[in-house]
């Protein structure tokens, strides 16, 4: 049985992470999983533990770790901006997996703010050959608004509730629809499209998995193309919209399907040396 190892690492030995390196995985693509929001490295409902262990069983070296000041990691004290800090931390993580498992290329996995951080690093670091963005950048498109508002406008029951509410002196539904929307911090859409174009242009593979839990800004598989245009047709990009799931995959069946999906995408795009883990 493969053992995981716990590490304190980084420029200031300020980072904490768990590496899983299967026997015979030297030089394989390493998978690094970033924090989802403020949840420590095990991930929401232990998603990152399930994911990394399943990927270890498939032959991939993995590292789940806490970025500076999250989970068990401290601050490096370097006076960097948060973006610089994230890039430096992931650089430290890649160096660790390189030392432990001989990895030269990496796939980053991130949910929500983790997707944003993975995006930032993937856009600039040539060692990143793939990325899995879970509920990453999204923008309310015209299609989104039609799908969201039209059924409501045409729903007599909703009108009746609205009129009763107005008669009672209350206000109407006052949800803003400002673009763009992201739980952490938005980036200009054109910038994100340019990043995606640059990533696939240098041969990166991307897997975008969006959930029904971000229905405030994303509500259909078609919205990938509505948001990001024709780059979504590139063969290096795979998309998946999972309307039934929530943002953090609280149900174990949803979590298992997500982990299987990531494993399948990795096997197709970054197959471990043939037959070794068949």
């Amino acid at each position, binding site marked *: 049985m493969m*053992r*995981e*190892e*716990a*590490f*304190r690492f980084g420029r200031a*030995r300020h980072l*904490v992470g*768990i590496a899983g390196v299967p026997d015979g995985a030297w030089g394989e693509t390493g998978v690094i999983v970033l924090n989802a929001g*403020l*949840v*420590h*490295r*095990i991930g*929401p*409902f*232990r998603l990152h*533990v399930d994911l990394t262990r399943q990927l270890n069983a498939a032959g991939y070296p993995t590292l789940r770790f806490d970025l500076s000041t999250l*989970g*068990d990691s*401290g601050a490096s004290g370097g006076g960097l901006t948060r973006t610089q800090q994230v890039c430096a931390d992931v650089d430290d993580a890649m160096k660790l997996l390189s030392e432990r498992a001989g990895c030269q290329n990496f796939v980053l996995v991130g949910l929500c703010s983790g997707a944003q951080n993975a995006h930032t690093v993937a856009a600039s670091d040539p060692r990143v050959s793939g990325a899995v963005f879970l509920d990453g950048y999204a923008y309310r498109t015209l299609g989104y608004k039609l799908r969201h508002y039209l059924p409501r406008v045409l729903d007599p029951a909703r009108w009746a509730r609205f009129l009763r509410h107005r008669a009672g002196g209350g206000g109407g539904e006052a949800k803003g629809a400002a673009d763009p929307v992201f739980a952490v911090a938005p980036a200009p859409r054109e910038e994100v499209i340019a990043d995606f174009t640059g990533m696939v242009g240098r041969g990166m593979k991307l897997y975008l998995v969006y959930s*029904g*839990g971000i*229905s405030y800004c994303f509500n259909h598989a078609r919205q990938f193309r509505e948001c990001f245009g024709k780059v979504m047709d590139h063969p290096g990009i795979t998309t998946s919209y999972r*309307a*039934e*799931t*929530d*943002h*953090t995959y*609280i*149900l*174990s*069946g*949803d979590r298992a399907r997500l982990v299987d999906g990531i494993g399948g995408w990795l096997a197709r795009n970054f197959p471990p040396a043939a037959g070794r883990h068949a």
Partner: protein
Amino acid sequence: MRHDPELPFFFGADGGLFGMYHAPATPPRRAVLMCPPLGQELIRTHRLHRQLAQQLAAQGVAVLRFDYHGTGDSAGYSAEVDWNRCVGDAVTAAGELRSRAGVDRIVAFGARLGGSIALAAADRARFAEVIAWDPVVDGDDYVAALDAMQAALREDADRFNQPRSHADVAEQWLGFDIGDSLRRQITALRVQPASVPTLVLDSMPAGGAPRWEHLVSRRGKVAAIAPPTPWTDLRRLEAAILSHPLIQAVTGRLAEEA
């Protein structure tokens, strides 16, 4: 050899238990073992446990945080979590802490089921004292509350676009698979007082506080801390639980001992 004030490592007979040892700057004379709660409460209180450990270490107390088999970073699947193994893991962790810190006297701290585990392990682990924060004393009530929250989760419109099927949410509590045996074990749980002094820190919402007196009837006391902790508020299921009053209460108790 490099001295890391916070050292992550694996330990236990099969090397499957994850621990984080907080070493004080000077050789410790006292030590605290943190017994975490289970399920989502473990994740929600992770930050608080770290803050508390750091403050205790700054007071000269050696601290070990750890994860039971099937939880956190430790080996095993969530569905494998077993009450008796959790108690056994706490005993193992106490031995590990004694070995690392070089002290025999260990105070156990635990929140919710972590407090219950600390009380159950007190004799075998030779704890000098147990500090239990809102411990679960009646498993029936706890299981009923978790079942009710899981049922509400199925139809939670803030989480799902459509209600999920009963099969989708079965055999889970708030994000974690549960085995039949754990359900039976917790349902049957009736925590008995430990044979060591016990401090119960009570932050249960008004009207929800169990009767703690039987836990502290021999030696110990119940101390209220405010504000109430929203353990069972589904809307805050993924919000971290932070509590300066809790940290002050525990560090204050350890300072009394110094």
